């Protein structure tokens, strides 16, 4: 099955974690926020979003809770766990190192 996503493998997890780090967020809002913050550049494939959320939950980095959404609808809110925060930090550092390295190569080579 093909999952057309413009994101580099593994970066969806990073984006999700970063997005919900600010406040508990539900699936729809996560996708919206990623799109908005990236200036409509990053389009999250919604078919890949939910499996990713469930995978992260299983790994214990995020937890989910039912709550009321802004338009008074029940929604599943995801938030970071303690180990999730640590994981986000290390992944973020990794990403920065990687993108800096790629930038360096592109500039000089």
């Amino acid at each position, binding site marked *: 099955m093909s999952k057309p996503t413009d994101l580099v493998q593994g970066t969806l997890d990073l984006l999700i974690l970063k997005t919900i780090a600010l406040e508990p967020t539900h*699936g729809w*809002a996560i996708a919206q926020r990623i799109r908005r913050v990236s200036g409509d550049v990053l389009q999250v494939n919604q*078919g890949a979003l*939910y*499996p990713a959320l469930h995978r992260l939950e*299983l*790994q214990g980095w995020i937890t989910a809770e039912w709550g009321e959404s802004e338009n008074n*609808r029940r929604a599943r809110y995801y938030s970071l766990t303690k180990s999730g925060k640590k994981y986000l930090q290390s992944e973020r550092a990794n990403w920065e190192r990687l993108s800096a390295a790629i930038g360096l190569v592109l500039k000089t080579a």
Partner: protein
Amino acid sequence: MRWLKSVLNRTHFLFHKDAVEKELDEELRVHLENAIAERVSNGMNPAEARREALLELGGVEQIKEECREAHGVSRIETVLADLRFGLRTLRKSPGFTIVSVLTLALGIGANTAIFSMVNALLLHPYNFRNLDALVRVWENRGMDEGFDARYIAPADAEDLRAANGVFEGLTTYNMQSFGLGAEGDVQPILGSRVSANFFDVLAVNPAAGRLFSVVEEQPGADQVAILSYGAWQRRFGGDAQMLGKTISLNGRAYTIVGIMPKDFDYPVPVELWVPLALTPAEKADRTQLSLSALARLKPGVSAAQAGAVLSSFSRRLEREYPKTNAGRATTLLQLRKELYMFTLPLFLLLQAAAGFVLLLACANLANLAFARMIGRQREIALRAALGAGRARLGQLFISETLLYSSAAGVVAMLASFASVRALRTSIPAGWTKWVPGWDGIRVDGNVLAFTILAALGVGLFLGLAVMLHTSRVEPNKTLKETGMGAVTRTKRRVRNALVVAQVMFALILLVCAGLTIQGFVRLANVYQGFEPASVLRIEISLPQKLYTDNVKINSFYQQVLRGAASLSGVQHASLVTNPPASNVDSETTLFSIEGQPVVKASEEPSADLQIASADYFATLKISTIAGRMFSDADSAAGPRVVLISSAMASRFWPKGDALGHRIRLGGLDSTAPWLTVVGVAGDVRQNWWNPIARPVIYQPFAQAPQRSMTLLMRTSANPTSYVSAMRDVVRGIDPGIALRGVNTLEDEIADAIAIVRIMGILMGVFGLVALALSSIGVYGVLSESVAQRTHEIGIRLALGANPRDLLRLILGEALKLTGIGLLIAVPCAVAISRAMASLIFGVVTVDFAILSGFTALLIAVALGAAYVPARRAMRVDPVISLRYE
């Protein structure tokens, strides 16, 4: 801990499947509503908005499935589904299920039973704390003299205790038999004299009372004893006031100060312990290796490290005391491995045989399973066509075979509780009293783990085998075929290979079992050179206190011999120090030959020393090779003479001129009198672990009397009927003397090889099981493959084939397969039997009679297996057999 959480999560999702599904639905619904609402607020009409939102999200069911997969729910679910399916298939064919479960249970059970013995006897023979740190220490004179000859000189042991840096503690002991009780009612009891730290080194505490103190190691202060639990129960009825009471041992009063716990009887099978109180002279002795020694290694010190320290220690002693210690090497061996030289090869062989039985069971079952798979071709093809991958099908097969093997494991486990108990109790205690750990044979955690592992291993193995076998199913072709489908070439090749393998396994195992059984039978004949039938043996031990000199000892035994000879029906009566089948090595002695001086102590010749009365050789019917046997003329006053064994004569006087030469017992500086060789006696095989006849020197009893002797009587009637008469004779001479070890020589021999005999019985059982399994297996495979040719046979007959030629053809093919199997198996069997011959006493290399017998048997089974179904196929009217397809 993450994995734990993940497992918990997975199981949570598994058990709350409905709730999770509902949540998933709800979550996706909320998402869609949001997506639609946003579009509607942007001015899109609701129907269009809904369509676009759905498109954007993608397949809802697919997302759900991916979420489920993310939870790992689906994998567990499919395994459960497979197991349920497997259970249904098992229920549908109860015959197949019962046969396969029982076959496997037999194989697994055989392994469990043997493993329970290995577990108890090899891995945990003693129940001591940190058993691996306990070592036996002894002094070796150039060769390993067997476990009964592992002794150390008292002074050397004392030096070692003072000098060592590797032992936490070192203790010495020896065995002694006592007469227990007052005059008139003396019972023999086996005890051990032990240093005060004996129990500390073994790290055991008394169940009641106390241990020995160092003070009690002094002669005179040593009249205290500790009882074994068994002795306390059996001999004193578990008397609660036992502590502080006195008992009489060899006429001396001993105070009971302690009772040991139930499971402690080291060194087996002693019933009591007294302090080892050596006189200063005995303590300073370096010439006699008279004590056994046990030590506990310091934590972190390996046996190899300690061994290195010991060898430098013995080099130091060699330098300091060259006269006594030259050529002596202090050696150690883990206590656990003490009996390995006897038990390890036997048990490894038994375990190997049990393994073979399991392999045979597996081979049979694999055949059955393959046969069933042919019937399930269409089902498998359908599954493959619907998208089940190889891994998915493998999972299905493995779940099914795991079901069989687990069921078999459970049956084997249940049966093992009973069979292990039967194994332990069905064997007379007399046979096993010398086997440490025997009472520990039971199904414990190790054995259960072994059974579970074996069952799972077999299940996986069978599942993989079936998976490989069916991996080449082509759905397209199979589904198009009608009815049974022809047997493809690959399928036939696999089937033929199975027949060959089955025949191979069968022959190899049968030959191994046969050889071992034959070897054990031969062991019983190790006792050669004498006539054991109709001989009664009685051990007599005189107390040191009352029998202080040779004259008294001599006169007592002369009266005993006269009394025995006067009983009607007694043909010969005689005395010897160590009768055959005593399970104890004879005392060895150094000696020198007149005119053949040796310079170095380590090169001194040694021989077994036996002391025998005049009639000994006549009593056991030991042959005279040269010269004369002893007579009454060889008295204390007569010239000093010896007899030597044939092995000794040929080793030291290869030219056959031993008679008339003189020898002197003892080391280089011995001043013992010269003894003249007056005769050569035939070799007697003493003990089953010594198949090679050792050199023996016989001294006449009258010239070298000993307090402990064995009386042998050759009788014309049943030897046991003389026991009470003999008891009266001895009581008449000295009522304080106990008769011990009363038995016929034949029974004694049977007892001596008991452990070997147990093995032989087990081997025999395995052999029979193997015979049955392999016959069934070969028969099953061959008859099935012939039965599948019913159609072909029908066509051939319809086309006018001669039935006789056809039968010959089919039998020929069966014979060909069997022949290939045998051709591969025979060299393997020969190689294995060679290896066995080097490992096990009594087993000689491959026996032609065994090999040809089993080969003929397997050929006969193969012919029957081909003939019966072929006949049946031929009797069927060709028209019917053709239409039947």
